[in-house]
């Protein structure tokens, strides 16, 4: 490794060491801590809307149950699997980047990106279906079955579109970042001493994944829980 061959008092600057840091170790710790802190604010961001969702679920159980029935659980389930798999490939990408095997890193990063795109594709399919069913809130919204519940079913759909939309936005950003990380991996930027961007990317990706792990049961599985099925 390079630090073995280098003289102790010789000042070598790694090309990716930014000037404000003393060494790569400090830089790595700062970048990972930065991402953790960012994710803490993200938890509050999603947490706020989840709380609002939960409050209305408590107030309007029937409307929530009816609206929950409209969700395509199969599509949501497949998407959950897709995302969990993508987290695995992401973790493997971080590991292989640490080990310095460029080819494997590229493969895993690419797979992650592909899974991300698949998720977005399936999500777009669901959105399209809801749109045509008149389940997009606003003037376009249609609900005939029990008109007195219509505003509340619409409220559910506001949360559905809002939360999955925010999540999808995070996914789009994630895929965009992956493109950038892949291009860096392609140019052999990463190795045992410098792999922070891949690791930070991984933290973000896992977080977005975990958000979905909450959204899936909230929006697809339990809206009717305790109301329609006992």
């Amino acid at each position, binding site marked *: 490794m390079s630090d073995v061959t280098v003289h102790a008092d010789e000042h070598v600057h790694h090309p990716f060491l930014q000037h*404000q840091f*003393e060494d790569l170790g*400090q830089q790595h710790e700062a970048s990972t801590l930065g991402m953790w*802190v960012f994710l*803490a604010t993200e938890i509050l961001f999603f947490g*706020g809307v989840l709380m609002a969702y939960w409050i*209305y679920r408590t107030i309007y159980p029937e409307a929530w149950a009816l609206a929950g029935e409209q969700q395509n659980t199969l599509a949501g389930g497949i998407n959950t699997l897709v995302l969990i798999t993508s987290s695995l490939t992401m973790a493997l990408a971080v590991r292989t980047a640490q080990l310095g095997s460029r080819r494997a890193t590229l493969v895993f990063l690419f797979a992650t990106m592909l899974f991300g795109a698949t998720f977005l594709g399936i999500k777009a399919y669901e959105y399209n279906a809801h749109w045509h069913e008149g389940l997009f809130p606003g003037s376009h919204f249609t609900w005939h079955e029990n008109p007195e519940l219509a505003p509340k079913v*619409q*409220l559910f759909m*506001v949360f559905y579109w809002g939360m999955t939309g925010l999540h999808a936005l995070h996914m789009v950003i994630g895929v965009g970042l992956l493109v950038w990380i892949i291009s860096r991996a392609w140019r052999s930027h990463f190795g045992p001493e410098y792999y922070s961007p891949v690791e930070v990317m991984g933290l973000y990706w896992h977080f977005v994944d975990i958000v979905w792990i909450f959204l899936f049961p909230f929006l697809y599985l339990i809206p009717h829980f305790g109301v329609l099925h006992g």
Partner: protein
Amino acid sequence: MTSVTYHDVQFLEPAKTRNYLNVDYGALSWLLTKDHKRIGILYMVSISVMFILGGFFALMMRLELLTPEGDLLTSDTYNKFFTLHGIIMIFFFLIPSIPAVLGNFILPIQLGAKDLAFPRINLLSWYLYMIGAFTGLLVVIIGGVDTGWTFYTPFSTQYSNTHVIGTTFGAFIVGFSSILTGLNFIVTIHRMRAPGLTWYRLPLFVWAMYATSLVQLLATPILAITLVMLMIERFIHVGIFDPALGGDPLLFQHMFWFYSHPAVYIMILPAMGVASEVVAAFTRKKIFGYTFVAYSSLAIAFLGFLVWAHHMFVAGISVYSAMIFSFLSYFVAVPSAIKVFNWTATLYKGSVSWQTPMLYILGFIGLFTMGGVTGLFLAALGLDVHVTDTYFVVAHFHYIMVGGAVMGYFAGLHYWWPKITGRMYPEWWARLGALLVFVGFNLTFFPQFILGYLGMPRRYHAYAPEFQVLNVMSTAGASILAVGYMLPLVYLLWSLRFGRKAGTNPWGAVGLEWTTSSPPPKDNFHETPVVTWEAYDYPAMLKAMGETQNV
């Protein structure tokens, strides 16, 4: 023979050295800078413009309130003015003030670091601020907004016919700039302290900024998501918060205050940090009870999250939850009181010198205490019912935000001005300014306590004739205050050219920022400092100085 005297050295030295101001020139070298010091200055200029704009709206309101009749401004215009005043002062001036200006400039230097951990994110935060600020300005130009800075629903979502979406979008964007500043500070404090600079050797300003950053990080996202929901509701007319469509307006208030009460601590904690620095420097003493002052910042940040519903005592929450929030609000006063007692104890038997920063901080301590004690009045359930939405509340929060936080900002600005610019401000004028601000402030806002107690409601452009005398006093005070705030604008600009050269350590203060030249070099220090002394070790410094004099 001796051609160079001490005076010449002082005079020549700065011209010879490169500092962060003269390393490069031109607009782009500022607009694309990643230097935390320059970004601090960008923020300083931007928030000063906002302060002037917010002050203009305040003055117009005070002029309107000179007479009981609503004669100068129509009620619609008055509604817009108090809304714009509140939004500008809070989101665009006070929240970024100490953190983004002084914190940006001083914090990395106090840590012995070359820069913040993420310089590019720091620049991004300023751009986000500017996008938000321009959105706000655009709203002002195209007709304003009239919801009050609190954006209460369903008025803001269904009934107001002003530019609510634009305004909330601006506040939303500025929120992210605040989050990014907080993130940068937290990481920098954790990871970039100079060798030897342990947590308990940190200046108390750093502790205060750390606590502030925690609040910025954990409270602001809730405001962001709340404003998103508000915008959605207004945009597509669904009932997230509108009771007519099945929503719950109380939920909005809960979520809004879950951010906005802690936001008060985003404003006041940094000022407390400045107070600790200034009190130590101008009494030449160690801060009494360092660890108590340090941890009370964290305690305030934590407890600040548990009291939000004291803004909702008359909004229809249950009596039991009101009682709990009332009790917790008393509790949050304890760590603030600890700080006040510790500053006072530090003053005791200190060799106090009456420079401008110290004058501002003495004002701060007194006015903040007034604001805090009247806050306890408001935390008492019965009394709050009597004074809710009256001028008593207006007086209370101006004592905290203007008497406390803005005074702290001005103290810090004067204290670090020599470091930032390399020049001294004119002391006599600055003292005059501090005095005018103190007198003008009390004359403006003390009468409002009485007005509120007597029952004058806030947010109206007309009032009952018997309230006029006190209102005239208040308006007179506001004009003095305006002069007090204009003075620094003039003499600080003047000092950039004509001020005395400051030298490295004009106050003889302890702290890493006073060991590097004024203005500092681009990387802050010529070599990474190693810290071997405790915070505020004035006794040791005085002793060392005594020894060198004996030699």
